[in-house]
């Protein structure tokens, strides 16, 4: 339990999380666009999109989830770059504003990562974070 004494104003609001999203929109970097196009073609569904979601659970509290989606759901937000569509449900969007999906290639391995400015901490497994 934290206790603070104040008349009307919290003593040090900056020490508390405000949880305000830090950016808007969702970005895809060049290599992510190229790779998504390739994967969609391999799946024989060039017109499908990618769904990105945030779910409760995971070791740091929240976890990312990505899956293929044939169509957007009614309340989804849709982002598009060069014909590659990303669908995000409104609740997840609150945690993803300003996030960029990148495809990283190194000598050792390659794969997708999310660069989320809302993240305060993440854990080693890569798909779990907290805001």
């Amino acid at each position: 339990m934290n206790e603070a004494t104040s008349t009307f104003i919290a003593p040090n609001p900056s020490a508390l999380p405000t949880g305000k999203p830090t950016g808007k929109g969702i970005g895809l970097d060049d290599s992510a666009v190229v790779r998504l196009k390739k994967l969609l073609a391999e799946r024989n569904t060039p017109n499908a999109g990618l769904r990105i979601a945030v779910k409760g659970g995971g070791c740091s509290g929240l976890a990312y989830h990505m899956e293929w989606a044939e169509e957007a759901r009614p309340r989804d937000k849709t982002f598009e770059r060069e014909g590659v569509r990303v669908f995000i449900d409104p609740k997840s969007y609150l945690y993803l504003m300003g996030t960029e999906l990148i495809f990283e290639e190194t000598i050792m391995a390659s794969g997708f990562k999310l660069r989320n400015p809302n993240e305060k901490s993440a854990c080693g497994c890569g798909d779990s974070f907290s805001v």
Partner: protein
Amino acid sequence: MKGFLQIHDPLKPKGHVVGIDLGTTNSLVASVINGKPSCLPADEGDARLLPSVVHYAKSGGVVVGKRAVELLAAAPTDTIKSVKRFMGKSLGDLETKKLGAYQFVEGAGVVRFQVAGGQPVTPIEVSGEILRTLKRRAESAFAGKVEQAVITVPAYFDDAQRQATKDAGRLAGLEVLRLLNEPTAAALAYGLDKNAQGTFAVYDLGGGTFDISVLELVEGVFQVKSVGGDSALGGDDFDRTIVQKALDAFAIASPSPTQIAQLLQLARAAKERLTDVTETTLELDGQKLPVTRADFDGWIQPLLQKTGVAVRRAIKDAGLTAADIKGVVLVGGSTRVPAVRSYVESIFGKPPLADIDPDQVVALGAAIQADLLTNTERQDEVLLLDVIPLSLGLETMGGVVEKVIYRNSAIPTAQAQVFTTFQDGQTGMDIHVVQGERELVQDSRSLARFRLSGIPSMPAGMGRVQVTFAIDADGILSVKAKEQTTGIEQAITVKPTHGLSDEEVEQMLLDSIEHGEDDMQRRQLVEQQVDAARVLIDARKQLVENGDLLSADERKSFELGVEALETLSKTTDDHAAIKNAIHELDEQARPFVERIMNRAIAKAAVGHSIQTF
């Protein structure tokens, strides 16, 4: 691929979800199949119960369940049982070492058992083996993958114990959708959540432990009101009572370990038979002991009364009486004993719910919860279970919101803040609980309102009220206001997300981002207006009480200053202008304040005789 995100394909067949009762003595796995929950074979020979025993072989192999039980006697330190009692504990916890004759590895933090076949293992790893076995058995029952589970934990488990259980799930390759309190699982299995509201008790008598929980159903969510029990009381004690009677009857003064083992087995069998028949016979080496159900009931009465004490205490802790309890659920194999059922009925004054197999009821409830959580139509509700979606706060003077718990705070959580009175002699404080990200009450969602009255009359700012916001794991908010000098308090409980659709939550958040800057301006304005009001109250009070200290001119000019501040604070929307005006009036009042101080000192001096100075 560590560090990278996988893209899942919903067109590929999904894994099944299960509910798991990870018990001290036995563990079970269940799943909802065609709308009906049922337990799956968990051990060899289609047994639904998997003994929670793990054996580590010298070869490095791991054996779980009944076959591990058979190895207990031969390799006691390599065979871990009742590992649940070690979850989340460190060797530093005084009681830990008493829990079993294992070879503990001294050192950092968590308990480690030195076992055959390699590295020492932690309780998380041992539990992980049990979960992995259950997962594998379920997968062979489904002939498909199992990747997600709801796992039950005792209601009294602390954060460390819960985290350890989650970690064990992850180790077994299971995504733990949620940890569910065992009594809540039992209540779900009986569909008690379909009631509008009410208070329920869960009486859980297992082989070696007894737990009693009182649950309150609030808007479809169970809250644990109180827990109690005895971690060393269970059906095994019933068996020992029978063994003792047999030893007396057969005149065995110093029984051999073999005799005790034999008798324990016979006693257990006799106990189980007496559930269906009223008379049976115990036979050892040609000697016979007839036992009637009435005999047995009499022998275990002292044990039942021990549970009764815990039950009554738990009901009292919940601030209730037995008559308030709407239903009682029986959990644990030992509640099959007819004497236990009639004893529970006598305490609560109503027959307990006992239609569902008491060994399976917790796992079945977990399966129902797992099904609810993964049901696609309800998937939206699953999201964001562990954080609050919108900030919670209360209204302060002028309609400004003071946030107490910020959005995205992990729950359960609790925060307290102290608020002071605004006026001299203020005897009440209105607590208005609001939700949302906006700075002003008019833009927020009103959740609840109550009044703390009976604050003793004091000058402004002296009355101190501590307001505590607490949110439990189910998202239920309780707000308590306590005046610190008298200790008087008032409290209220609400469910912040009740009646709030996803669209509304989303809209409230987007609004707050859109209006963020504007809101801050308005907040600062209101704060200055409140400040001005406070200064005006004080200035007018002094004019009435000490106005004679001012010359007519001075008085006139001061009154003009007061008027000017009042007009300004009501007309301008420039918070800086009000701040300046307050400062100017302060300056203007300085000589006046000095004279008032002098008079007060003179008054105090007159009140005393000269000698005291």
